[in-house]
């Protein structure tokens, strides 16, 4: 079952065609990787999916709803979450409060004023902190965490919301090999409830974690399919051996 249908998406910045007629279908409860050389349009596509900017042409359908020109807060409210390439946590709030902020976002303003869900969310937050190895840091400021821990915090802020679709832009950027391996392990259990679209430079890591891959080059889809198919693709080999 397709959860995300990208049809003929285009985006132009001045004279540069960053995305040129992209078509991708993402199946529910799969991990789908977007790879490609620098400047191929991966992050631009992810931002168009998240609502950071709008596509100039084409349509994006998520869970049966046309979201092409919907703002990010709407997309988030229907279960589409985005993790930025540059870690976007709230550094002056505690780790615990960062997660509380994320998980309470479905509450009404009146519920927030009355602080109705604060106590009842405690268990869920602690469970997530434990899952992402951040329990000891619960009361620390998020800005005091290491880079890798900040990345985990941001991922955990999305995961706790149990989104239908999670977009991760270079989730292992700046991490040590050990942290990368741990990140992969942390993501695997969410497959039951969440579909993942990941942009990543580390090809070995993304091949290990993803079911399907789409390769972008110069704003177009070069090839798409299972990891095995992409590994054997001559077109992909050519791009990666000549230009990466």
């Amino acid at each position, binding site marked *: 079952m397709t959860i995300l249908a990208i049809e003929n998406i285009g985006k132009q910045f001045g004279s540069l065609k960053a995305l040129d007629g992209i078509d991708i279908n993402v199946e529910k409860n799969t991990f789908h990787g977007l790879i490609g050389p620098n400047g191929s349009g991966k992050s631009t596509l992810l931002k168009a999916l998240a609502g950071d900017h709008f596509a100039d042409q084409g349509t994006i359908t998520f869970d049966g709803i046309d979201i092409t020109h919907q703002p990010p*807060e709407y997309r988030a409210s229907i279960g589409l979450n*985005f993790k930025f390439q540059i870690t976007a946590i*709230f550094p*002056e709030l505690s780790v615990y409060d960062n997660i*509380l902020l*994320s998980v309470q976002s479905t509450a009404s303003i009146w519920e927030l004023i009355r602080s109705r869900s604060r106590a009842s969310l405690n268990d869920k937050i602690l469970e997530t902190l434990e899952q992402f190895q951040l329990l000891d840091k*619960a009361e620390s*400021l998020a*800005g*005091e965490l290491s880079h890798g821990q900040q990345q985990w915090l941001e991922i955990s802020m999305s995961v706790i919301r149990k989104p239908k679709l999670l977009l991760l832009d270079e989730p292992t950027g700046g991490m040590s090999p050990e942290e990368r391996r741990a990140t992969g392990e942390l993501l695997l259990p969410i497959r039951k409830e969440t579909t993942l679209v990941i942009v990543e430079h580390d090809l070995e890591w993304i091949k290990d974690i993803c079911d399907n891959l789409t390769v972008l080059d110069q704003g177009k889809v070069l090839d798409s399919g299972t990891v095995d198919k992409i590994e054997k693709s001559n077109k992909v080999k050519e791009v990666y051996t000549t230009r990466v």
Partner: protein
Amino acid sequence: MKDKKANFKRLPLLEAIILGFLVVAPLFLSDFYTVILTRMLILCLLAISFELCWGYSGIMTFGQGLFFGMAGYAVALLANKVGFVQIWGVIPIGIFVGTIVSFLLAWLLLLGKKAPEIIFVALGTLTFSYAAERLVSGWYYVGGGNGLSIFEFLSFGSYEIEPGVLFYYIAGIALLVSYLLSRYLVRSQLGLVLAAMRQDEKRLLFLGYRVRGFKALVFTFAGAVAGLGGALYAHHEGFIGPNNMGIGISTMAVLYTLFGGVGSLIGPLIGVFALETISFTLSGVDAFKSFWPVILGAILLVVVTFKPDGLTGFIVSRRERIGTFGRIDKKEKNGRKETKD
């Protein structure tokens, strides 16, 4: 980033000291100084209203004077034209006018299709304040440049509430209630959203929050607080004029907050007491009479330049001012840690 001061609960202590002082102050102050202090309490409402917008929600506004002045004019007109000076009506009317005017401004400036830039809101509120000041200056019905005087005292039934100890405690209770309500709001789960909004508004959108709605809500609540202040001010001073609703008083609200310290509700109060005391003292010294505003300006510049956290920053750490919002169940947390070990 670690701060030793963060370990101490200095903020509640500071609040308790100031509250204690304000409760007993009329017992040892003369009537003259009680009246001066009452004026400061009323101006604290104006300062809190700015702090809620800027310090807690990241809305740079020069409109607080507008809400303050409009409420003041409304109750002054009622007193002059209809003879209505009953406190049970004056206070709700002040709050109502502040709420309606600030909501209209929020609707115009904050609730557009796209999230407004800080500068757009700052200039927008500045323009409205300036326009309103010019309008009342030239409008004979509301006293033109001379403003409106109120010749009757605020009353409860037939009992007249003259400026003095009773008015002081009424203003004090109005401030205490506004302070506690604001404190409840900024420490609630909604306060967590506001704290995040100050740090990264865009990120908050991606978490699904309708940021503009939150801003409009706080802006309107702050307008109500300023309106309450304006109604009390007009009756306490027996006068309201164009200077009480324009850019001048709006800028004073900004200065009180910057001087006292952004990021806490007690900071603006300290700013009001400090700036008003310095102004009052300097203006009374013969040697400084002709140029005391210059000295005041220099003091302001020094504090804002070298201590951006304001006077409160000397006592309360930034960490404590931001605070924590989740109440971590320590037993549960420790239980999880032991299980893990």
